[in-house]
């Protein structure tokens, strides 16, 4: 099976070799074959030996996470290619558990000696009771629900550059005041394999494609910017549905709105937050506090509140890693568990957490497909996938017309949270003042701050236009792709930072 795992990657590179035979010399082939020397191969027998070594001092669980990732990124500035990132990430992370104690090690040395040395380091720290384990790995195959029509690592870079240029041009031509356009094209081919002492052996291939454009508008020595992006767990067919031009225009439109805007006034206000990336509010205000990472250690404001009413009854929140081709979806999590759809909050009542194996042990609860890590260099913990508020019954126009004076946050920026206190903050990328139920002049530089428990109670209207936006979420196990989403919502009162 592991041979297959390698041959899959081999196949990938082979395709490149043949499709670009002009830039590759055929002489590289024989050497390439030597890459898979028998004793360097991650054979099943070697995996079993390494797991047994990690368990050799009394651990009750051990796991190997193998990764081979191709990472391509093209950056463009002013319509010209600025840099091309072409990176290969290969390595192994080994982890052992003994009760709720965890020891992990990672290495880029994939030789038999390197792997056994890495496993020994884990064994040396986790316990001191000599133990002989008989590990027998049985392979499990998961269904891949994320069709990829055109694998991006095997598409000519010139094609990606053309798409990027089209997006940049659309942004630049949007208005004379657009002074600079930056853009990136990112594609990741993330191959993982997980083997553990329960005998599990499985793998997944996670392919993602994303384009982002940021436009700067300048007038009279002042800069304002706007950004827009689209990303899916698919290949180049992403652009069959989303045109690069629409991404570029949206970034430029936002920059122009901000260039004409005055500063946002500060104080407590009623705020309507638009759909899509607006869902970052749930992600920061509440999502992180529902990760077992902080719940298990009792360092979350949401710890011990299962079954309690923590939000307005209009609020139902979901974490769903199973949505086909969604940016944050996974077939299996990084412990090899199938991805799940979890109802986190139902009509205001806390129903579930995101749980990984280690923290599940602390909480006495079962893991639910939520364990994630950026790469072999991190050890996995519970994280979000695609997290969103479900649609409600309020008409969008009613939400706006209900606000006498407040803020309409049309585009959100990023944010952060302290799970202990639940205090969060985030930036608003595009905002307008609402006066007498009407959206009025744009304002810039706004931020929203508050605590999760407070805002969940204050969401008193939920609209009908659910949509998701893409982001990268950074936490203890690294930076991972997640979707955030919601329909238009009304928050009755929140502190707006401005000047």
């Amino acid at each position, binding site marked *: 099976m592991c041979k297959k795992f390698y041959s899959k990657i081999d196949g990938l590179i082979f395709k490149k070799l043949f499709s670009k035979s002009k830039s590759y010399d055929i002489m590289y082939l024989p050497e390439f074959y030597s890459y898979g020397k028998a004793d360097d191969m991650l054979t099943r027998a070697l995996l079993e030996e390494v797991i047994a070594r990690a368990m050799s001092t009394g651990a009750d669980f051990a796991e190997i996470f193998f990764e081979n990732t191709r990472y391509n990124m093209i950056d463009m500035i002013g319509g010209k290619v600025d840099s091309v990132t072409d990176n290969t990430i290969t390595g192994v992370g080994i982890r052992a558990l003994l009760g709720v104690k965890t020891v992990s090690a990672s*290495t880029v040395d994939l030789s038999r000696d390197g792997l056994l040395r890495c496993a020994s380091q884990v064994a040396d720290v986790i316990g001191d009771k000599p133990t002989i384990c008989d590990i027998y790995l049985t392979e499990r195959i998961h269904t891949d629900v994320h069709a990829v029509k055109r694998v991006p690592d095997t598409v000519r870079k010139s094609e990606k550059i053309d798409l990027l240029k089209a997006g940049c041009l659309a942004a630049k031509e949007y208005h004379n005041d657009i002074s600079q356009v930056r853009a990136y094209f990112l594609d990741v081919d993330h191959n993982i394999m997980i083997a553990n002492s329960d005998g599990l052996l499985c793998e997944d291939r996670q392919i993602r494609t994303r384009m982002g454009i940021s436009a700067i508008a300048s007038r009279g020595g002042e800069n304002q910017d706007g950004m827009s992006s689209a990303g899916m767990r698919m290949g180049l067919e992403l652009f069959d549905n989303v045109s690069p031009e629409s991404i570029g225009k949206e970034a430029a439109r936002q920059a122009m709105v901000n260039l004409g805007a005055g500063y946002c006034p500060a104080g407590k206000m009623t705020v309507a937050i638009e759909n899509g990336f607006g869902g970052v509010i749930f992600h920061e205000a509440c999502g992180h506090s529902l990760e077992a990472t902080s719940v298990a250690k009792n*360092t979350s404001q949401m710890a011990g509140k299962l079954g309690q009413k923590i939000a307005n009854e209009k609020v139902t929140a979901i974490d769903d890693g199973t949505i086909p081709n969604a940016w944050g979806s996974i077939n299996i999590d990084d412990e090899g568990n199938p991805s799940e759809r979890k109802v986190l909050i139902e009509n205001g009542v806390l129903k579930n957490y995101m749980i990984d194996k280690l923290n599940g042990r602390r909480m006495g609860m079962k893991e639910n497909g939520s364990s994630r890590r950026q790469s072999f260099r991190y050890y996995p913990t519970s994280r979000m996938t695609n997290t969103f508020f479900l649609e409600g019954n309020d008409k969008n126009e009613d939400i706006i017309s209900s606000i006498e004076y407040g803020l309409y946050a049309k585009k959100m920026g990023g944010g952060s949270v302290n799970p202990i206190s639940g205090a969060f903050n985030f930036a608003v990328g595009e905002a307008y003042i609402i006066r007498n139920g009407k959206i009025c002049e744009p304002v810039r530089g706004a931020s929203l701050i508050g605590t999760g428990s407070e805002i969940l109670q204050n969401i008193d209207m939920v609209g009908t236009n659910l949509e998701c936006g893409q982001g990268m979420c950074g936490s203890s196990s690294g930076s991972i792709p997640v979707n955030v989403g919601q329909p238009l919502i009304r928050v009755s009162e929140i502190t707006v930072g401005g000047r």
Partner: protein
Amino acid sequence: MEKFDILKKIVKECSEKRGIAEYELYYSESSGISADTFRDEISSFSSSVNGSLLYRCIVDGKAGYASTSSLDESETELLVSRAAENAAISEDDGDVIIFGGASPEDYRQIPKCDFTMPSAAVIRERVMKNRELLYSSDSQIAGDKIADGSAANVYASQGRTFLFNSNGLDLSSSSGNCGESFRVVLDNGEEKKTGGERIYNSFDKPDDVRVEKIGKAVKEARDKFGAGSVKTGKYNIIFKNETMEEILDTFCPVFYAEKAQKGLSLLKGKVGEKIASDCITVTDDPFAEDNTVQAAFDGEGVPTRCKNVIEKGVLKTLLYNLSSAKKDGVETTGNASRGEASIGTRVYTFFINKGDMTRDKLLEAAGSGIYVTGMKGFHAGANPVTGDFSIESEGFIIEDGKIGRPVKSFTVAGNFFELLKQIAAVDDELDFGGPGSMRICSPDVLVYDMPVAGE
């Protein structure tokens, strides 16, 4: 033969075989150990062995880059062909340079790294001892409980960097350091507050040092209890050193010439102009005396040097690498960073010089206002292109020139470029913290009339 010597040989052969005359190989390897505690035991312990190989070449006047974490020899060959392929699609303006070399005396002799990596057993023992110190601290006496989430952390890491290029440059450096940190979560029955402290290269120091640090962390957490709100309005603000450092860290790229050349910095064309108030002098120093991690060469192999970026409010220079210097027709300042896909710009120890006013005098000068001790969310709430920021903050009220009650949940908004001009005074304490390859430091600074959003 050392691994790097083998890699050099392969890269040289592969490059020559493909007719590539100009290339550079940058190799870094590192290893690290880290241990954390939860309640009465080690909750996590991790060790890592990392390596990365970065290659770039110039083909037909254009640069191509490729990188890998795999040190497999056949992977090294692929690296060369991938970079050559990427050079073919590059649209750089031919300003990329493989450094021609300098004479050995141009490189500063830096203190030799004599760090030896502690064993896993030493780390384990240290972290458990620290956990004990943490939980036996006198905070319990005051009736506050040291709550879950409190933790001791101990880490050690070491690394080596090698740079080899087709012009015969062959450089290496090594560094290593270890440290301990304490995180205190205090629970007074009503709310939980956190405090934290660190010490560096400290394994041989006596426990008094740790006890003192834990005491500081406990005090930091306790002082936050009962924090109230502030009314929206304009306030005199003193940014505590750590918060000013975060601001400077966020906006540091505006001093990079490459950003200005790309229209991403408002400091474009401002060299020689007054951009800050008289009390501001900003220095970038690769050889800060207290630092055990010094840099004799930058990411392109160019010798580094110390320079003032702002002198008494006047912008003296932007920060350059070879390519951005060529574009502006100046000498590089030796500030190149080596990224996976480009040569960027970096700083070393980048700091606002201290003034001559004591902290008490600074508080007196503020009269009434807010002493801002914590700010978070810079990645979202601050924009280096525009200079705008609006950041969630916490701190203490300043009344009659003295620190008063704690306050939280307010934002401080401003614009970095305006802020530089608005700084009225800086105090006379500059703490560089521990060793590090990149450090951003500042004394406390006073700014009048900043907009604050609260109740």
